[in-house]
């Protein structure tokens, strides 16, 4: 990929407002002369990076034009000291000041009170803090204060070789381990002008779809847990366990850690292993469908899931919502349609039957996508899936973007290589794109429905916090 198109600060807002391609995140980086700049990723027929310098540390904010840039700008301020003119008041996102006025939205009025929850939660849940502003049970606003798990992984990866950086970033998140690794590898390969051969594309696609299968099974289990329907939780937990055993049989690891490498794809596991895996995936998909039919007749599940947590199509579009949450709102958006570095022949996004954008639609989206992913996995397991290599072209430095569809949506990894090392890496996962929508969806719910609304997105904290 060529150098980013560098735009003067006074033309930055105009450029992003009128660019026909979709905004896919922005971040701060050191420009060619070492001075700070802000880079945005735009996704259309091609993927581009545009950049503007931070003049005296300030860049014009685009948050009024592109609400999806809200968290990106706040993160760039907290971690890189870049300020955004017009993004006022700046509320801390990654940093955790004691003074509530510095990070939370003031919500005033008769009978308004606040309910703080977390960062430690009641069950086995990732750490994160939520401040609910409520009247009675009705939620008026939610301030999500995440980044309790911030490990500085991007900065820890920088300065290392691409292989070493991959090892750092591959521990960002267990739920998206494969997707994040594929997005990073694709970004490095884009920067180096290299292309994976068909065997590598097939291997990586298989692993991404297996990851989606176990995640979606887990998400359905969690939604059942959100309404207290233990038989549903346990049935889908058992199916998730079986799916993870398929992952372990094929890659030697239940979360497929370190299975995706820059080198390519390992040797084919053999016809017998592929046949066993395909049979088990078929059986899991069939049993998930049969169990889903059982759940369909459970009135308590239907009562609780129909209605709450609506994110409609215009909101989803404006907030840049991705993945099953976008498709549950009726947007036929799926980065797999354009994933030429992977293997998705004749792919079409699968929408749930009633895409109303509520908890029920997001539950249905998982069921539809489970079948789709199982079909893709079975097709891939029908033929040898390795060995494969990534062909060298010019081994150069430069910029690259890698995109992969995680179980939670489009994950965008941007890499800058200099002298064979990673100069800057930015990982914007599907969870990162969707968290603001969770907070918004919860504002129309009652407080006791928040866990359910939250679980219907089932976003990671780990790869958002990094």
């Amino acid at each position, binding site marked *: 990929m060529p150098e980013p198109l560098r735009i003067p600060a006074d033309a930055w807002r105009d450029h992003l407002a009128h660019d026909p391609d979709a905004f896919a995140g922005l971040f701060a980086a050191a420009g060619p002369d070492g001075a700070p700049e802000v880079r945005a990723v735009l996704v259309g027929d091609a993927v581009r990076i545009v950049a503007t310098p931070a003049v005296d540390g300030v860049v014009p904010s685009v948050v009024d034009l592109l609400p999806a840039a809200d968290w990106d700008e706040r993160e760039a301020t907290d971690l890189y000291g870049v300020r955004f003119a017009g993004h006022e008041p700046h509320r801390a996102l990654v940093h955790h000041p004691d003074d509530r006025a510095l990070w939370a939205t003031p919500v005033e009025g008769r009978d308004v009170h606040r309910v703080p929850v977390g960062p430690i939660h009641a069950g086995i849940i990732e750490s994160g803090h939520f401040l609910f502003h409520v009247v009675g049970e009705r939620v008026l606003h939610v301030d999500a204060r995440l980044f309790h*798990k911030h490990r500085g992984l991007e900065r820890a990866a920088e300065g290392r070789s691409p292989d070493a950086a991959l090892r750092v970033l591959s521990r960002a998140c*267990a739920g998206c381990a494969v997707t994040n690794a594929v997005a990073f590898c694709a970004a490095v390969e884009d920067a180096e002008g290299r292309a994976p051969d068909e065997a590598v594309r097939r291997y990586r696609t298989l692993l991404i779809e297996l990851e989606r299968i176990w995640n979606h099974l887990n998400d359905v289990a969690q939604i059942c847990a959100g309404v207290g329907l233990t038989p549903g939780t346990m049935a889908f937990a058992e199916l998730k366990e079986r799916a993870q055993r398929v992952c372990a049989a094929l890659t030697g690891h239940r979360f497929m850690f370190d299975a995706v490498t820059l080198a390519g794809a390992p040797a084919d596991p053999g016809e017998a292993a592929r046949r066993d895996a395909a049979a088990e995936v078929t059986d899991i998909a069939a049993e998930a469908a049969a169990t889903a039919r059982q759940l369909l007749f459970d009135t308590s599940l239907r009562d609780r899931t129909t209605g709450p947590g609506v994110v409609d199509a215009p909101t989803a579009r404006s907030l840049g919502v991705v993945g099953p949450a976008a498709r549950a709102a009726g947007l036929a958006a799926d980065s797999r349609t354009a994933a030429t570095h992977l293997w998705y022949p004749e792919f079409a996004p699968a929408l749930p039957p009633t895409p109303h954008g509520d908890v029920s639609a997001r539950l249905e989206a998982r069921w539809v996508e489970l079948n789709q992913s199982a079909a893709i996995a079975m097709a891939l397991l029908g033929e040898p899936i390795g060995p494969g290599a990534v062909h060298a072209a010019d081994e150069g430095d430069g910029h690259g973007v890698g995109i992969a569809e995680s179980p939670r949506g489009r994950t965008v990894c941007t890499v800058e290589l200099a002298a064979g090392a990673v100069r800057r890496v930015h990982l914007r996962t599907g969870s990162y794109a969707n968290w603001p929508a969770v907070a918004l969806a919860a504002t129309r719910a009652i407080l006791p429905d928040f866990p359910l609304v939250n679980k219907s997105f089932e976003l990671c904290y780990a790869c958002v916090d990094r």
Partner: protein
Amino acid sequence: MYVLLTNLARMRRRIGLTRQPPASCAIRHVDAGSCNGCEHELIAAGGPRYDLARYGFAITASPRHADVLLVTGPITTRMLEPLRRAYASMPEPRLVAALGDCPLGGGVTAHPHEVAGPLDAVLPVDIRIPGCPPSPDRIAEALREGLAGLPRERRPW
């Protein structure tokens, strides 16, 4: 729903888990910056396939009645204070277990400014459960071995 419950009961009989004489141990889990892998495996350990409850282990919602504080992650600076508060809220005698390679000092390569770990540097660690992440059956086994290896007056029963 009837079919669903019957299937679950059948699965439990088929895998033939051994049952243990009753004991009890309350565990409070705290995520101090994990990748969520240890959480997935801990949830699985409590699920139908591994059934942590058959050994008397229960995951509690509060540190106030917990016997064991089970910590995951490399101890991020932002989780240090909540972790210390959870430990301070526990009644004596109390135990601390490190779940996964991260709290043991291996695991993720974090930026040094963002972590206060390993767990040893923050709290006294009694039980170590290595793995990235440890498998659900290994979690149950390591908890039982770890508790059995403690002097009698430090055990929760």
